[in-house]
């Protein structure tokens, strides 16, 4: 363990011009490795050169020392519990981090709040209820990575940095939907216990594997579809812009989750059953979203243009979106190497209209070309 405390003797020598300079003369580094910026600037990919670009499959130390630096013996053990690269890595994580930083937006500045129109009371209520649910569910996608970030070894710093962007993205989503609920005069609506049960499942996950599958792949996949539906159903250009900007962020998180699971399973296929069991439980709980009035009815009312119209049209539009949502989720699972088509745990009534659910040989090509 390095001696703590100020080295006053060194200070005296330095005052006399007797510098140490071992950091200059003896540090083991790749002198001469020069990263060149690409077309958008100096990216993480651009600096993944020489030994600096080599991410170890298992981190040799548990320190905050930058990967590739000359680490002094005796650095303290930070107690990281995630020390295997495959536990957090994805092949697109460098690209996604850069994209996230580049595409940040402001819920204060980038939404044309002054153009928010006066809406009929039922439409405003529906929009506010939907905003309440989204403001509620989005923050768990900040809490979960935040809970795990400090446990991830610093050698996988690019993955940590990407998760930091996700924390910021989700804070902004929570912010923008809270602002939307308050901007139109309707205020916040109801928060339901059944929705919170799924959020608790993510937050209480016993491993990053479990939580990431539940959140990045299942939860955020569903919310991505919900954002796309929100853009379709939005009563004005203000909400449309909100939903499009949120869609962009959410799609990055889903892209990370899908490719992370793929990376994980390619290196240890024996984990497939574990991931299946996480998603079994997650699907059972998330199915409540499809049967919770506070989610289903605002969507139906926005789709129909009012309560009366919604009562006449019932769930016609919502059914199209439900099928789309489930199909996209199953395609991502399959792309990650986890075929859920024969195992999905959503109730039969919610699977009506979803293609390629049986485990017959004819379904092998289902993901060859996706729509």
């Amino acid at each position, binding site marked *: 363990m390095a001696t703590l405390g100020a080295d006053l003797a060194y200070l005296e020598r330095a005052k006399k011009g007797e510098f140490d300079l071992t950091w200059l003369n003896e540090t083991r580094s790749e002198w001469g490795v020069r990263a060149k910026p690409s077309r958008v600037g100096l990216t993480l990919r651009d600096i993944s050169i020489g030994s600096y670009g080599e991410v170890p499959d298992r981190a040799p130390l548990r320190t905050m020392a930058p990967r590739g630096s000359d680490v002094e013996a005796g650095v303290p053990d930070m107690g990281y519990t995630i020390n295997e690269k495959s536990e957090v890595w994805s092949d697109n994580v460098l690209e996604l981090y850069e994209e996230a930083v580049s595409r940040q937006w402001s819920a204060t500045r980038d939404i044309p709040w002054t153009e928010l129109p006066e809406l009929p009371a039922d439409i405003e209520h529906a929009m506010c209820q939907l905003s309440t649910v989204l403001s509620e569910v989005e923050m768990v996608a900040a809490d979960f990575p935040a809970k795990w970030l400090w446990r991830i070894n610093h050698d996988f710093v690019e993955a940590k940095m990407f998760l930091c962007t996700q924390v910021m993205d989700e804070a902004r989503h929570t912010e923008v939907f809270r602002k939307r609920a308050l901007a139109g005069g309707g205020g916040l609506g109801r928060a339901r216990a059944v929705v919170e049960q799924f959020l608790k499942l993510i937050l209480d996950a016993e491993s990053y594997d479990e939580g990431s599958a539940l959140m990045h792949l299942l939860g955020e996949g569903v919310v991505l579809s919900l954002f796309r539906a929100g853009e379709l159903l939005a009563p004005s250009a203000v909400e449309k812009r909100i939903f499009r900007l949120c869609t962009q962020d959410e799609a990055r998180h889903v892209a990370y989750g899908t490719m992370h699971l793929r990376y994980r399973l390619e290196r240890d296929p024996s984990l497939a059953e574990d991931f299946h069991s996480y998603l079994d439980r997650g699907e059972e709980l998330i199915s409540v979203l499809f049967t919770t009035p506070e989610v289903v009815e605002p969507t139906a009312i926005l789709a129909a243009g009012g309560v009366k119209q919604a009562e006449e049209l019932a769930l016609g539009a919502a059914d199209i*979106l439900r099928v789309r949502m489930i199909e996209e989720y199953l395609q991502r699972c399959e792309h990650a190497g986890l075929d859920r088509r024969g195992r999905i745990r959503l109730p039969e009534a919610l699977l009506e209209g979803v293609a390629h659910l049986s485990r017959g040989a004819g379904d092998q090509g289902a993901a060859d070309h996706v729509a």
Partner: protein
Amino acid sequence: MSRISAGEPAIRARPIMSLEGAPFPSGEWFDALVASACQSIEQERLGFSELRLAFQMTDEGGGARAFGVVFEGYDISSAGELSELSSFDPDAVVTGDLSAWREMFDNIVAHGRADGAHTFNALTIADAPLAITAADPLRRDRVFRFAETIQQLLDAASGTGGAAPVAAPRRTGA
């Protein structure tokens, strides 16, 4: 092929109206659309994009034509009309009847931007009248990652003046 860069003011300043009258659909029309987008989109505010998107249009006789747009960093460029999709290697292909495309662009020109029923997302979410297809879900999801940039590209049709398909036959009964 028109290549427009946010960092090349000389090209950005090219007058769009010089392409006035470009027929829709055509490579020239998409060149004009991209040129208009590069004048109107705040690319550095929106952030960079990496996407190869093909727009495929089927006419009443069943004939299909496709046009490519490449988003690369802060640049958007038109690949013009594509002789074959595979050599363009699109991340995603957006397909639909020519009449649906016309209706969308007519709507954008009429309103200055797509109205609620004619945004790119609204027209594609149910696979009709436009559908997004891709070789795999990750490449399809790229379309969602750049949703606002794509919408602003399409909305730029309102700035293409006579190049926009306002004079094209309108779909009836829509």
